């Protein structure tokens, strides 16, 4: 494979395009509502109408507006059909020929779409994720070619630093700095790992990216591997995402066949292989040292840092770990230039962020917005507010490690620092909207139960602390707690936060702390009337039959 081969594939693919494209969303959400049947019905209807030469029925990835799925887009005339069923699908072909269809449409120019800026999701819902030719036709692998032939590894790192990209897994560590550290670390072998262990409940950005545009992640990993001097990559993906796994397997096979992975990529001396590692359901494996233990086939228990993975990671070798979305940002940065990327977003948070918008909101789905977009724009304009006339009470970001931002702070811009100031975190991109029906203490207990179950048990503050905090929250909800219990809860939050070994424990108190900060009255309303109460120091058992009315 040389550059002209790439251009040839692109030209052939574009020349073969038919006049009309019918894009069928075949990401996991729409697949669960019969997208496979819909595509089949459309293909049959196209054949029956004798339109095989003018209409292409294409499988595509996520078309973002998940709540209205299954989605089908006819282009031209750029009509977005919603809630299509296998029965109504054939009428879409009739509509193309000037007939009528009963299928409802949504406005592709609505705020939900218009306010988005696509970098990571540019190909999502447009290309066929199971055909590498389709990715190449969208300028795929051009960046890798340019990097391998025009840039030295240190220039690749420098460009990444200049772009200002920060890790999209949640913590926001500067990607260029991480790449530079791994590149400088001496090691006979180096590894690149893609963290696709999207454990945050309520988040599905990484799943969507992998299902919609797996090659962008592979290309990003290859560029990163060249920059740091690695020759082996792993993608650690959750077993709960079977469709993402199968599309990744197809993508890796196709890239290998074309010589875009493996030995001597683009006839350069650069070698790079990627293997999949399937997770087995452990939230803690999203933590990098636990993830590496899992890749090595061990229990996913974290270890103290330093040494950081950049110095001593997988099997003791320098290892670069980035999130799916971070890698998906890489090819566009090299294709369009670091300055272009640095021009998007805010001063300290560059580029865009993909969010999975869900919960009590009209439009649920996948959105990609420039950093610095106010939460209000996302929730009210794009999301359309709470359904059924409800009122938005809070927005939860960062999952079990994040916090709840109350409605009065909706004008906060979405960037790493602003969310941090409110006691939440950017997180990987789960954004759950809650309305007035949602009890915030129950939400705190929900997340604490999650962390309690997911604690690996290695360090005591997390193992015992989460259980005790859960017990106290439960006691408050059962109206058996006194003010002293609330004080003890806060004390425990502080202790677990500052003494746990890894990120899971250090952030486990966050949902409780943030709900305490903004919704303290909900906690206090549940406390027993007499202050002090029967609960003495160290008493963690519920008092017998206390005010169980």
């Amino acid at each position, binding site marked *: 494979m040389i550059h002209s081969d790439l251009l040839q594939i692109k030209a052939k693919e574009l020349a073969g395009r038919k006049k009309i494209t019918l894009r069928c969303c075949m990401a996991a*959400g729409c697949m669960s509502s019969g997208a496979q049947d819909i595509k089949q019905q459309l293909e049959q209807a196209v054949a029956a109408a004798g339109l095989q030469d003018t209409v292409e029925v294409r499988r595509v990835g996520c078309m973002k507006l998940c709540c209205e*799925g299954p989605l089908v887009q006819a282009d031209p005339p750029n009509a977005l059909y919603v809630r299509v069923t296998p029965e109504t699908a054939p009428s879409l072909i009739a509509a193309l020929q000037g007939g009528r269809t009963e299928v409802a449409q949504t406005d592709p120019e609505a705020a939900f779409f218009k306010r988005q800026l696509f970098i990571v999701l540019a190909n999502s819902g447009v290309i066929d994720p199971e055909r590498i030719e389709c990715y190449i036709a969208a300028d795929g692998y051009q960046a890798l070619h340019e990097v391998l032939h025009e840039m030295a590894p240190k220039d690749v790192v420098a460009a990444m630093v200049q772009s200002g990209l920060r890790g999209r897994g949640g913590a926001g560590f500067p990607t260029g700095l991480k790449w530079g550290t791994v590149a400088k670390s001496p090691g006979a072998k180096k590894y690149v790992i893609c963290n696709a262990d999207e454990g945050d*409940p309520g988040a599905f950005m990484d799943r969507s990216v992998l299902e919609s545009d797996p090659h962008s992640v592979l290309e990003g990993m290859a560029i990163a591997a060249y920059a740091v001097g690695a020759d082996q990559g792993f993608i650690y993906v959750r077993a709960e995402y079977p469709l993402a796994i199968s599309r990744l397997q197809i993508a890796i096979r196709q890239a290998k066949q074309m010589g875009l992975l493996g030995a001597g990529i683009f006839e350069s001396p650069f070698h790079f292989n990627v293997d999949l590692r*399937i997770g087995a*359901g452990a939230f803690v494996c999203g933590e990098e040292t636990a993830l590496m233990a899992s890749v090595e086939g061990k229990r*996913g228990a974290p270890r103290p840092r330093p040494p950081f993975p950049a110095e001593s990671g997988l099997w003791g070798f320098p290892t670069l770990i980035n999130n799916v979305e971070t890698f998906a940002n890489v090819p566009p940065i090299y294709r369009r230039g670091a300055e272009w990327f640095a021009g998007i977003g805010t001063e300290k948070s560059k580029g865009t962020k993909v969010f999975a918008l869900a919960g009590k909101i009209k439009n649920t789905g996948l959105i990609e917005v420039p950093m610095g977009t106010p939460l209000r724009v996302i929730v009210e304009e794009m999301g359309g507010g709470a359904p059924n006339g409800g009122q938005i009470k809070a927005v939860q970001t960062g999952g079990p490690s994040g916090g709840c931002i109350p409605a009065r702070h909706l004008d906060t811009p979405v960037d790493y620092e602003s969310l941090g100031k409110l006691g939440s975190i950017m997180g990987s991109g789960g954004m*759950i909207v809650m309305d007035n029906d949602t009890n915030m203490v129950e939400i705190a207990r929900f997340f604490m139960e999650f962390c309690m179950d997911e604690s690996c048990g290695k360090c005591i503050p997390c193992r015992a602390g989460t259980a005790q905090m859960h017990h106290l929250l439960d006691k408050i909800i059962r109206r058996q707690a006194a003010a002293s219990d609330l004080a003890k809860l806060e004390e425990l939050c502080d202790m677990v936060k500052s003494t746990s070994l890894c990120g899971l424990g250090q952030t486990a108190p966050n949902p409780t702390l943030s709900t305490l900060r903004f919704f303290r009255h909900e906690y206090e309303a549940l406390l027993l009337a007499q202050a002090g109460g029967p609960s003495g120091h160290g008493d963690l058992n519920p008092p017998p039959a206390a005010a169980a009315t």
Partner: protein
Amino acid sequence: MVATMARKKQGRLRAALEHASGDNRFKILEVQMKKHQFRQDALIEVLHKAQELFGCLEDDLLLFVASKLKLPPSRVYGVATFYHFFTLKPQGRHTCVVCMGTACYVKGADKILAAVEEETKIKPGETTPDNRVSLLTARCIGACGIAPAVVYDGRVTARQTAGAALDQIRNWGAK
């Protein structure tokens, strides 16, 4: 004492291997291990395959894997019990997985789960005594856009209600 323990363990291993020789699924599993060159770091991949073949990971199976990968049984058992995806108990004929991710939770997954628990008289992780239904919960299946979601026998179903879930489970009962 130590000697007897070792002998006892060897006896168990021999029994497990003997048991394995008569079952074709063990051969398939061994082919899978060979594909990974019997590398010890492939343990999780091997256990995934084992669970896919056998439905659950019983002691004999874990001993078999341990001996083939030359790993101590404790390590294999430790990994099998650490990860939620692996199950050491056989599942019922049907499985009902209620997603308890945050989006599903705020949209009433807890009510669906409570209704199913009430109907089947079992808790998550358990199987009905007649071996008909296993009830499970998931941390998040990533189908938040169509919450609340329930997975019936591996099929993700969107926008569920307690009533719809009960219909499905009663439907299984009829069969």
